[in-house]
């Protein structure tokens, strides 16, 4: 059962910002698919501010080189959006894999990022797109790289009076990108492991390689050393194997050895070998 609270439905971003600043003990509710679960377990808030009426938080804008995605966009809408599918395909795939149709119809991108679960599906593809989040409060606006915004499992730099209003992601034309997740069943399951990638290669040579691993380390991350190593190198088995080894080393460096790695590291290895190697390595 939910603990008692006062419910406030706002009709604009401004109203949301004002309410948030003036009401002590308020929580924001977007889709509620994380918040209500926590509240049913006993988390209490005096006020719950429902953001769904704030139209400014919705929508997608192509800003030439980047896409700006409103934080209130649901996973279902992101998964079905043509512009996102075209230039941010990994994110579309990731959002389409979240939970179940019900969860995708309610759950939002903003909620996914602010909740900042290590298994949140949208994080890895957004890291690949060098995403930047915009945060607003009645005192102003700031932007932060997603990589910096999430500081630990379920932890971000968000201020008490801030709302995450949008996310800006590089459009990656000419890249081959994708997203894979592993879960214990075909649907309605949290990712045990996920991998997002965007590759730009020509004539058998890697130009730019972007990889992000989710559900493995405390925060989804980009293995920068391996990415840098691959840039300019030929797309060949020994090169790919070396890069994969670097990724695994980096995971171990970040997290130490964990019992779950007996499963996860071989999966990261095999998925990366096939993603990076293409047919040559499978």
């Amino acid at each position, binding site marked *: *059962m939910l603990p008692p609270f006062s419910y406030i439905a706002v009709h604009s971003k401004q109203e949301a910002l004002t309410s948030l600043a003036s009401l002590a003990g308020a929580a924001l509710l977007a889709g509620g698919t994380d918040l209500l679960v926590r509240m049913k377990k006993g988390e209490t808030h005096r006020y719950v501010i429902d953001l769904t009426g704030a139209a400014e938080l919705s929508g997608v804008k192509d800003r030439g080189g980047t896409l700006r995605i409103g934080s209130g966009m649901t996973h279902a809408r992101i998964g079905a959006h043509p512009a996102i599918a075209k230039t941010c395909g990994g994110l579309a795939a990731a959002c389409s894999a979240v939970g179940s149709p019900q969860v995708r119809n309610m759950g939002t991108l903003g909620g996914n990022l602010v909740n900042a679960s290590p298994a949140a599906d949208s994080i890895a593809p957004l890291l690949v797109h060098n995403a930047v989040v915009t945060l607003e409060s009645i005192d102003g606006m700031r932007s932060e790289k997603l990589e910096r915004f999430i500081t630990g499992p379920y932890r971000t730099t968000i201020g008490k009076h801030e709302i995450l209003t949008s996310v800006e992601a590089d459009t990656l034309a000419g890249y081959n990108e994708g997203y894979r997740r592993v*879960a214990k069943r*075909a649907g309605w399951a949290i990712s*045990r492991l996920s991998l997002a990638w965007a590759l730009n290669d020509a004539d058998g040579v890697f130009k730019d390689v972007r990889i992000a691993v989710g559900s493995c380390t405390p925060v989804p991350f980009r293995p920068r050393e391996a990415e840098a190593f691959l840039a300019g190198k030929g797309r060949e088995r020994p090169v790919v194997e070396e890069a994969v080894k670097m990724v695994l080393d980096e995971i171990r460096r970040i997290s130490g050895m964990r019992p779950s790695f007996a499963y996860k590291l071989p*999966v990261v290895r*095999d*998925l990366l070998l096939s993603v990076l190697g293409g047919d040559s390595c499978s």
Partner: protein
Amino acid sequence: MFIGRDLDRVDALAKVLGTAGFAHDLRMEGMLFACVVRSTKPHALLRDVDVSGAYAVPGVLRVVSHKDIPGQNTFGALRKDQPFLAESRVRYVGEPILVVIGENEAVAREGAARVRIDYGEIDAVLEPDATGKGRQIYDTGSLMAYKKVRKGDVEKGSAASDVVVAHTFRTTWIDHAFLETEAGIGYVDEGGRIVIKSSTQNIHYKRVEISRLLAIPEERIRVVQATTGGGFGGKLDVTCEGFLALAVHLLKRPVFMRYTREESFLSNTKRHPLSIDYKTGARKDGTLTAVKVDITGDTGPYASYGDAVCLRVAVHATGPYEVPNVWADCKLLYTNNPVSGAMRGFGVPQLAFAHESQLDEVAEALGMDPIDIRIRNGLKRGSVTATGQVLSASAGFVETLKKIEPFWRARQKTKKGSGFGLGCMYYGIGNTGVANPANALVELGEEGRVILHTGACEIGQGSDTALLQIALETLGVARSDVLLDRGDTDTSKDAGSSSASRQTYISGKAVQEAALGLRAFLDEAGYYHRGRALGDIYRATKDKGRLLFEGFFNPPASGLDEATGQGIPYATYAFASHMTEVEVEEATGACRVKQVHAAHDVGKSINPKAIRGQICGGVAMGVGLALMEEFIPGKTASFDAYYIPTSLDMPRVEVFLVEDEEPTGPFGAKGVGEPALIPQAASVVNAVTDAVGVHVYELPCHVERLKGLIESKKTTK
């Protein structure tokens, strides 16, 4: 004609419209809410129980302890060994200690949360110990049940084998995961009797237990089955009924209960985790020579249905094959883990996983096709089972294999990681080696309406519709002439539990008998030949009293010899073969089940669509058993971490029916409820082996376990 027809389920419309009164939906004016305080320790003495916090919550009316029980504080379907409310000691996490009754659910739960219990912890026994040397929970030792089957001489049989395969198979706790958690309502009726309506698989049994608990005669108690959202064996034991009866008895007001999902996971019985040492011997031509099976299982601290599981797995140890030399031992041991009890198949799905894997390995060693070794050894008419029973009729096992044989021979791996597997089973219908009768009543009521009174609980398996079809066919009346009155101890006689796939066969036969009684009466009254209307017949005879016709059936079976397990444990058996196609992704260990061909010998199909429904449900449950379901005591709390298959995990299912009629069954029918599940996990596992060449000896074969097997195969290569 009503047999073999896809009559619409009698409960379909109400369920689709949402008007069916599930136990969770029951409400009464002025009703209170009761909730249970449960042990948080696996093994402890109750040093002090402080209920003052609960009474401090406004609206809490009563905290009930074992001291408030007027009658016997024990229950159990087969042994009365489990306390309703713990007295001085708790033996598993989730064991009930108190019942808190409040004005509403929030208040009752708040009260329950404020009870303080001072536990004196005792080291818990968390591993079944067959040696008898380790720590024990009871002075009488850890062995709860021990059953044996002996036929021929396995040592000689093994010596005469060209190939011997031996492995140990392990399974774990499985939750029934019925969608409706345990729930019910209780009240005192105008006559001062206690009435309980609940989500249950058996009403007459529950009445006996309430009578013992409250020390009042059974006539003073009425138990009614509410529309029930699934059972699978988990609503055979007393769940909320005892607490409701106690609360109503003490407070004389309506009381409602419903378990949260977390409570259900914590408190309900589980499928027995079994460890199965299995040795199979065969000659070069594939003929089985000997089977030796040594099984140990974790039964938790109380017996529940452990005795039934123990005997049934020993009896079914060989699977549906004729084996001249059999040695099977099953020991169930007490622990402080969850109480293991009845769950769809009573241990046989675990056994099928073992005997079917074994058979594939024997076939592989001999270079035989898996289907050929099954056809060669399959039980058929005239075969002698492991308990020495000669199958004289209705033994269509080989025919089930023949149904899927064309698909098996034509199978083709379409991509890397695809594989095919077979799984087969036989299953004795009804309880093992004991009397398990059912009664039924058919009445000619007001205005000539025929009323079928049955105590058989409809738990979604379709017994309402099947029993109705049997009555309709026997009587040769119209659908609109018959009214079904089900699941009320006031209007029905004991039909036994809806378990062991027994209701169509046993209650069905009792219904047929009762209907034959009415038929003879109607015949004499001129209904069939002179076209006299039912209403006229009723009006002409109603002054002579109720026109009630009784039916009774107890399947002809016998007890088994203690030392050898020889005898006739069941009057009839169901048989099935499943063929499953999977796709395994080596990189991730993910296994998807693509298609299942399922062939079942049901004796006679009463309602083909309902059978198909049972088989699809059984397949889903088997996919869960094979690939994902795993209850970890102390860890698994809810569906958050307990994975059951979703629609996306479901394969396509093709159903084939074999009708080798059972002479003692109603119109030749047997049962299919549990058989639908039993071979499925086995066929998935064999398909995984075919797909990626690893052998699976432990379930569930979830992504991590499968990837681990694939990895270790790589390194040993």
